[in-house]
């Protein structure tokens, strides 16, 4: 109900505002010569974009609403999560620490938010064993959120006293000094499992390489496509692009994440249908279907 009320009053407010603005603008419109006064209220060449946006909007709002009402939405288990569990399991057998690097971006980056959810889950599995979970951070604003995520993990595993605040550490806010600091942890405290999940940039290379040289089992995941090649060759398993968000949705079952995921899955199936039908029609020299997707 809260969403519908929100949408309703926003919509009316924006309509009223746009109408008044246009009215004021009408008599204030610059009477410069030369500039053609365009009074059309809608550019019909762009109706295909509008339709595409409305379809995607509807799918996402519909599935978030459905997830909110607790309807069970199926999301397949991401293979990356098994890899993370295997890495944590191996570290606990060897009694060595686990290193969890949540990326170098701030909390306004969706990848860092997804990484915090996975961190909480990893903390819950680690809580049963007496091995340290080291979380090095680059930005001061991420520190409280990471601490909270790990504490919640230990709490839900029933061992709040095992939570060690000093393992969630602020290193440095300069990109390569942060990477050098993490390399120091890898070489000194020799973690058996390195988890790199979040938004990474050029420093991903340095981290994955040092981690590989220490022989640790490594699992990485980022939506920054240009960093995936390095993670893929240097790590044992890599979550590719959207799999990072799918993993956080799978773990948290949070309506917002689950709904958005299902919504974009449905949108992808529509796109697959369009591609199938469109390709056949274009091969039969039927052009009108393809021209629907032209942008003027």
């Amino acid at each position, binding site marked *: 109900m809260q969403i519908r009320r929100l949408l309703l009053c926003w919509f009316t407010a924006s309509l009223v505002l746009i109408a008044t603005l246009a009215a004021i603008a009408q008599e204030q419109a610059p009477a410069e010569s030369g*500039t053609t006064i365009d009074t059309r209220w809608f550019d019909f060449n762009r109706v295909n974009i509008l339709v595409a946006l409305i379809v995607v909007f509807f799918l996402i709002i519909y599935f978030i609403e459905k997830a909110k009402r607790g309807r069970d939405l199926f999301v397949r288990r991401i293979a990356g999560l098994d890899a993370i569990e295997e890495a944590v399991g191996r570290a606990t057998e060897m009694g060595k620490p686990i290193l969890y690097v949540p990326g170098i971006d701030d909390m306004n980056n969706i990848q860092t938010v997804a990484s915090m959810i996975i961190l909480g889950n990893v903390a819950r599995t680690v809580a049963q064993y007496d091995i340290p979970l080291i979380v090095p951070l680059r930005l001061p604003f991420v520190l409280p959120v990471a601490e909270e995520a790990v504490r919640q993990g230990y709490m839900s595993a029933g061992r709040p006293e095992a939570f060690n605040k000093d393992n969630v550490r602020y290193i440095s806010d300069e990109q390569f000094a942060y990477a050098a600091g993490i390399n120091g942890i890898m070489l000194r405290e020799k973690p058996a499992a390195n988890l790199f999940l979040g938004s990474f940039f050029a420093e991903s290379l340095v981290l994955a*390489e040092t981690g590989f*040289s220490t022989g640790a089992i490594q699992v990485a995941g980022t939506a920054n*496509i*240009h960093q995936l090649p390095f993670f893929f060759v240097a790590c044992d398993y890599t979550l590719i692009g959207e799999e990072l968000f799918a993993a956080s949705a799978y773990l948290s079952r949070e309506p917002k994440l689950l709904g958005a995921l299902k919504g974009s899955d449905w949108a992808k199936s529509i796109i697959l249908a369009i591609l199938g039908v469109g390709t056949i029609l274009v091969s039969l020299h039927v052009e009108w279907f393809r021209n629907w997707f032209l*942008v*003027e």
Partner: protein
Amino acid sequence: MRKFLEIINTLDRRWIFVFIGLAVSLPLFFPIGIKFSVSHPVQGFYDTIEKIPDGSKILMSCDFDPGSMPELYPMTITALEQMFRKDLKVIITCLWPAGPPLVERALAHVGAEYNKQKGIDYVHLGFKEGKEVVMVSMGASIPNTFPTDYHGTPVSEIPIMQGVTNYREVAMIVNISAGYPGTKEWVQQVQSRYQIGLVAGCTAVSAPEFYPYYQTGQLKGLMGGMKGAAEYEKLVGVMGLGTRGMDAQSVSHLMVFAFILIGNLAYFTLKFMKRKESG
């Protein structure tokens, strides 16, 4: 043999730094000058500018900074050479804060060569913060977005800017881009919205991402990295930094290929030996 493999497997990375340092330095002292051909996207970049009638106005957005200068500064210089030869009027904007001083240097260097006057043949409008907002805002009005040029002279007093309100009065857009904001945003926010010709020169890191835009025709030309700059210099007939760096580029690529090969061979033979012993 096994001892040798052990050494390779645990080689200190600083040795590799020395190898790469040599692989890049030596070709600079002993230029070989290996020939190379021009690829289609770079030919597209050159032909699109060549087809613009002489004397018309072009918007060139230099969105890069010293961090990507070796790849993008030669492109800027060569693009200015081609445009000034065709007596095109160039309006330059920067969406990266560290871009303007580099543009000033490029203009001083090439402008003097073709004795072009500031304000008549070219204007440098400097930097504006706002990323995509600046692009959309220029779609409405360039003078309102850039009220003065980089040195503070109001746009109304600059001859080249007379009659220019937005993208409709500009023949095409040339974008030299190092990342965000850059070519992707120019394609998304400007090219499809205002149906204006767009060509882009970008760093090699971001080139693979822009091939889909080149295939759909959203980009009429695409130059990737120092190799793209070298090909473009060959087309324009200029001997710039791009061409001079090609030998070092070749040798360093061979070196990285060798590293991958040796690294894997040593890793797997060692593993095979250990399994044979324990097996």
